[in-house]
């Protein structure tokens, strides 16, 4: 197929496990549709890109507080409903396994494997005091203009 590829862009604003999972399922489906896919992570959505291991970085007090209070990585994110102080995610992961669905960390790996563009919003990265070392490899840092450049050519644009 020589015609221009279609584009899908998703803004992942939410840091909820279930919402991020929905975003990544749509993104992986779009990649299978041969779309160029961009996921633009901003605010709490950035937590999906955090490494689960602790990264040694220099931070101020407020930045440390933020780092402590936000989930470190996709697997530690809570649910938007029925979180029950952390029991909800355990239950949902059990059900995901039972139904042979893909858990969020694997969906993110699959996204990278499918050549998706994973973008971290630089402004909110700074705002939340995150350092590039704390985020997974293979992502890009960009701002609203870069997002709009992709989205204005997008056939599917979602905000989750």
């Amino acid at each position, binding site marked *: *197929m020589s015609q221009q590829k279609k584009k899908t862009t998703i803004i992942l604003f939410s840091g909820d496990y279930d919402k991020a999972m929905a975003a990544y*399922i*749509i993104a*992986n*489906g779009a*990649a*299978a*549709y*041969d779309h160029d896919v961009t996921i633009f992570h901003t605010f709490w959505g950035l937590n999906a890109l955090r490494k689960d291991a602790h990264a040694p970085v220099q931070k101020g007090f407020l930045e440390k507080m933020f780092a402590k209070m936000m989930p470190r990585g996709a697997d530690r994110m809570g649910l938007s409903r029925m979180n029950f102080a952390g029991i909800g995610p355990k239950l949902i992961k059990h059900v995901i396994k039972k*139904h*042979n*669905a*893909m858990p969020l960390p694997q969906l993110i790996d*699959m996204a990278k494997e*499918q050549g998706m563009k994973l973008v971290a919003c630089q402004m909110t990265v700074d705002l939340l005091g995150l350092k590039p070392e704390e985020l997974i490899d293979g992502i890009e840092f960009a701002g609203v203009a870069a997002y709009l450049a992709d989205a204005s050519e997008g056939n599917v644009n979602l905000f989750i």
Partner: protein
Amino acid sequence: MNVAKVLDAKGLSCPMPVVKAKKAMDELTSGQVLEVQTTDKGAKSDLPAWAQASGHKVIDIKEENGILTFWIEKG
């Protein structure tokens, strides 16, 4: 029917059957047929929709003992 490749996607949930079908299809050349076996009920709508949007042709669909089998010709 000449099946060039068989994809076993049984037991997998959305979006995996379509993701795997796309990967398998990338290895075929135009006119070759991919057989996809799945147990995902949603695939009944998903795979034909994906095939059409990607320029492939669904030649036949069979449902037997909860297993859906699709034959898709690469466009």
